[in-house]
């Protein structure tokens, strides 16, 4: 059998194997053959064996035993053996193998070989797999070849130099002088290599970059030559003269013109010429135009040129070729920040691309659409995006959802629209939203207090139909929080639907029992059920039984909650209402807000309430505290001095607290006198706001002949009660009962402890300082008729 067909015969045999096992058998036989061949030494058959081995390697079988053979063949004087040897080196050896070092010497010799084809083999192999040491060794040779050889070798040496610089950046200086002169070559191959080399040099070293800026006119000249040249059959591709070289030069011009006005000016004309004259009906022309657009956008070009570039991209958007549409969207994405208005003009086309069949195009269109959303177009864009969300491929869903949320947060025209949008996303793609959506949405709902009724109705309806976890969690929270609004039935913005307490409890129980509910969701549902116990009237027993069932649940979190809620029902029933009252509006910046835990946690309301008291305490001078503590007989109830009339007393959260809890009209209550002495009389008036809040007004009047001056009141309450004193109306009480001083005190009694208050009055009358104390024993929660025991 003649050797010429031996390789092809082997390939045929391997291909005819019907099973993988059969193929393996054949390969094993052949490899044994090859190994035997290698051991035999030089007999003219080695190159065939190596060729066979390379085929076997390509099929995926191990071929490392051929590495040494490559080294030997490379050293052979025969061209055919060298050729296959170098090919084998490129395929089997890489810089990590030790054997690769062994070929350095052969390469060195071959670089000075008389035949340029042998030289080219060496250059090619070095550029493909040369390690750093090899490059260091051979760099001077390459540099010599760069300068003094024919164009065939020059072009290869140039690219070899590029590889060397990548491996050993310090050698860049070695090649810089020759690179400049190469630009004057006529051969396109050498020219192309030179441009690549200069690009690489400029990337590594900003000084070299400055140096090569002087070459801009020369590059512009070369480009002009290419663009305006007549038809050259050698380099022509679809009417463009050497698009490969054109693109490379444009890329280099981009680097040279970036952030440099002189260089950018020098290329303005050329870029305009290329942009207008290049025919983009075929890919080659589009490639050149694309590179031109990138260059225009990256240098300091004049605005007319930039507009031209964006228009080209806009034209690309309308192109039939999907590749070109994809490319244009990628480029528009890069410039949407800087040239926002220009890109906005093409918004319609971009939004249309959302409906394209190709996923890559869809992805680009989505990113671009999200970048184009602004306050002006938010409504129409959101409509398109929501439609897209319903039909988009699953891998894009979560990105779309988060993009929609971001856009809605920044540009939503109204709270209701915002809530509607988020609900829509949750119902369409609830499974793909991120976890922090839930607390964010809840926070948003609490701030939109006028929409509570509307929100809870919508969420209830969604809950009945859907099971996406995020949606269910938000719905449970809202039902728990605003269940009373749900049961009221009417809501102006939505069709009326009669919801009974049983319906609501059914819905929550379904969530609790469903297999689909995650433990976190069940936690939400349980807390919501518990909260409803204070907001509904008829089915409290049902809630009690639900809660007690979960007291023996396997899940630790649920069990703990159920046990605590049970305790609320049994031992602490009097506290239940206070504990489960409405949450205040959540401030987004509060720490611990976005930790993903259920915000329905009981502990939360307390964190906002102690704040006003603490603020007051901090401003209290220390000496006064000691004094008052003595007076109060060693108890450590903090005494709060009445603040000066000009100070601003409260923090906003406290005020909100009262707002949310309010709604009850204060019924007029009688004034009760608590102190009468020396003509000064003190009356108190209770306004009960809710079950735990009391507003006490202290009214002082003077029946003596003289004015009472420097009148101040101080008050102390038991530890569990929070006290806040508002500024008095004045500190002078006119004589003869002609005027009064009123001071309001806000008491907050969440634990419903028995209310007591000690009041100390101090004033001057006729030049003498007076001080006295009154203890008010109890303020019964219903009647607010205090019983007094003066000290």
């Amino acid at each position, binding site marked *: 059998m003649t*050797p*010429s067909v031996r390789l*092809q015969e082997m*390939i*045929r045999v391997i*291909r005819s194997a019907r099973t993988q096992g059969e193929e393996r058998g054949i390969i094993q036989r052949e490899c044994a053959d090859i190994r035997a061949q290698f051991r035999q030494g030089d007999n*003219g058959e080695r*190159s*065939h064996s190596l*060729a066979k081995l*390379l085929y076997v390697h*390509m*099929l*995926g079988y191990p071929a490392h035993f051929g590495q040494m053979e490559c080294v030997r063949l490379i050293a052979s004087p*025969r*061209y*055919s053996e060298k*050729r*296959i040897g170098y090919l084998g080196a490129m395929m089997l050896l*890489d*810089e990590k193998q030790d054997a690769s070092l062994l070929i350095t010497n052969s390469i060195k010799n071959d670089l000075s070989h008389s035949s340029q*084809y042998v030289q*080219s083999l060496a250059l*090619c192999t070095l*550029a*493909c797999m040369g*390690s750093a040491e090899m490059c260091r060794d051979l760099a001077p040779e390459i540099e010599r070849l760069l300068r003094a050889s024919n164009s065939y070798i020059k072009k290869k040496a140039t*690219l*070899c130099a*590029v590889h060397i610089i990548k491996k050993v950046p310090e050698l860049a200086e070695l090649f810089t002088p020759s690179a400049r002169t190469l630009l004057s070559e006529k051969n*396109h*191959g050498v020219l*192309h*290599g030179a441009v*690549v080399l200069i690009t690489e040099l400029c990337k590594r070293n900003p000084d070299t970059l400055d140096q090569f800026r002087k070459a801009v006119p020369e590059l512009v000249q070369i480009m002009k030559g290419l663009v305006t040249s007549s038809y050259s059959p*050698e*380099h022509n*591709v679809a009417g463009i003269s*050497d*698009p*490969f*070289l054109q*693109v490379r030069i444009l*890329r280099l011009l981009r680097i040279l013109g970036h952030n440099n006005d002189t260089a950018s000016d020098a290329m303005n004309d050329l870029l305009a010429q290329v942009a207008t004259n290049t025919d983009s009906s075929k*890919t*080659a022309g589009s*490639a050149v135009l*694309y*590179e031109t657009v990138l260059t225009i956008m990256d240098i300091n070009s004049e605005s007319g040129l930039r507009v031209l570039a964006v228009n080209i991209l806009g034209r690309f958007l309308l192109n039939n070729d*999907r*590749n*070109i*549409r*994809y*490319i244009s969207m990628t480029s528009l994405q890069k410039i949407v920040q800087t040239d926002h208005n220009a890109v906005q003009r093409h918004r319609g086309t971009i939004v249309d691309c959302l409906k394209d*069949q*190709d*996923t*890559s*195009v869809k992805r680009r269109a989505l990113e671009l659409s999200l970048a184009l959303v602004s306050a002006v177009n938010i409504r129409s864009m959101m409509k398109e995006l929501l439609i897209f969300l319903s039909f988009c491929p699953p891998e894009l869903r979560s990105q779309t959802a988060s993009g929609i949320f971001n856009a809605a947060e920044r540009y939503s025209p109204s709270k209701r629209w915002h809530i509607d949008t988020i609900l829509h996303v949750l119902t369409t793609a609830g499974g793909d939203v991120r976890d922090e959506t839930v607390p964010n949405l809840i926070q948003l709902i609490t701030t939109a207090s006028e929409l509570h009724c509307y929100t809870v109705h919508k969420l209830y309806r969604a809950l009945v139909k859907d099971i996406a976890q995020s949606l269910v969690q938000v719905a449970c929270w809202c039902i728990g929080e605003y269940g009373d609004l749900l049961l009221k039935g009417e809501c102006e913005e939505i069709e009326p639907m009669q919801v009974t307490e049983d319906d609501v409890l059914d819905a929550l129980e379904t969530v609790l029992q469903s297999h689909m509910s995650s433990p976190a969701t069940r936690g939400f549902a349980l807390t919501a059920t518990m909260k409803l116990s204070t907001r509904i009237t008829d089915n409290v027993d049902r809630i009690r039984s639900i809660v007690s069932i979960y007291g023996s649940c396997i899940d630790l979190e649920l069990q703990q909650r159920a046990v605590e809620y049970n305790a609320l029902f049994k031992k602490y029933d009097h506290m239940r209402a206070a504990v489960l009252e409405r949450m205040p509006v959540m401030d987004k910046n509060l720490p611990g807000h976005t930790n993903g835990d259920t915000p329905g946690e009981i502990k939360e309301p307390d964190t906002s309430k102690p704040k006003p008291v603490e603020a007051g305490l901090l401003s209290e001078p220390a000496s006064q505290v000691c004094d008052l503590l003595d007076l109060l007989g060693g108890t450590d109830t903090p005494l709060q001095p009445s603040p000066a009339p000009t100070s601003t007393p409260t923090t906003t959260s406290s005020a909100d607290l009262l707002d949310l809890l309010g709604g009850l009209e204060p019924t007029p209550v009688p004034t009760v006198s608590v102190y009468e002495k020396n003509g000064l009389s003190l009356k108190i008036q209770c306004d009960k706001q809710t079950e735990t809040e009391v507003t006490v007004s202290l009214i002082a009047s003077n029946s003596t002949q003289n004015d009472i001056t420097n009148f101040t009141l101080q008050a102390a309450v038991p530890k569990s009660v929070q006290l806040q004193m508002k500024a008095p109306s004045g500190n002078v009480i006119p004589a003869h009962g002609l005027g009064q001083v009123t001071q309001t005190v806000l008491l907050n009694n969440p634990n419903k402890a028995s209310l007591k208050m000690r009041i100390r009055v101090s004033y001057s009358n006729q030049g003498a300082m007076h001080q006295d104390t009154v203890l008010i024993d109890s303020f019964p929660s219903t009647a607010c008729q205090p019983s007094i025991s003066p000290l």
Partner: protein
Amino acid sequence: MMHFLLLFSRQGKLRLQKWFLPLPERERKKIVKDMTTMVLSRKPRTCNFLHWKDLKIVYKRYASLYFCCALENKDNELLALEILHRYVELLDKYFGNVCELDIIFNFEKAYFILDEFLMGGEIQETSKQSIAKSVEASDMLQETMEEYMSKPAF
């Protein structure tokens, strides 16, 4: 710079692999598998560009072979399509109406042609005729030597 160039059939069989970066064998095998899976699962009328890790993948199907290459971020994808097309033209010129079987049975020649066209991940020659002439000359050199040694090529 191109990171690699792969040719594989519709069944995922590798016909040519050119690596312009040093990568261990295991890594190369994994990349080949990823590429074949990704490209073969693309629907017919989608665009020819993909994203994979931080590389741009450009692929084109010619008859029964997929040509697939990986580019860096700065590279021009449309130009890469032209590069792949140019390579196919070179093969076509050399083999005369090239088909997959030509590349299977003469894979080493396909490599030689590629090595005259691309080097270190960049284009080394933009003229078709020039490349054809060099490959022809190298073949002649080989044959002449073989004739001298009175032994034919592989």
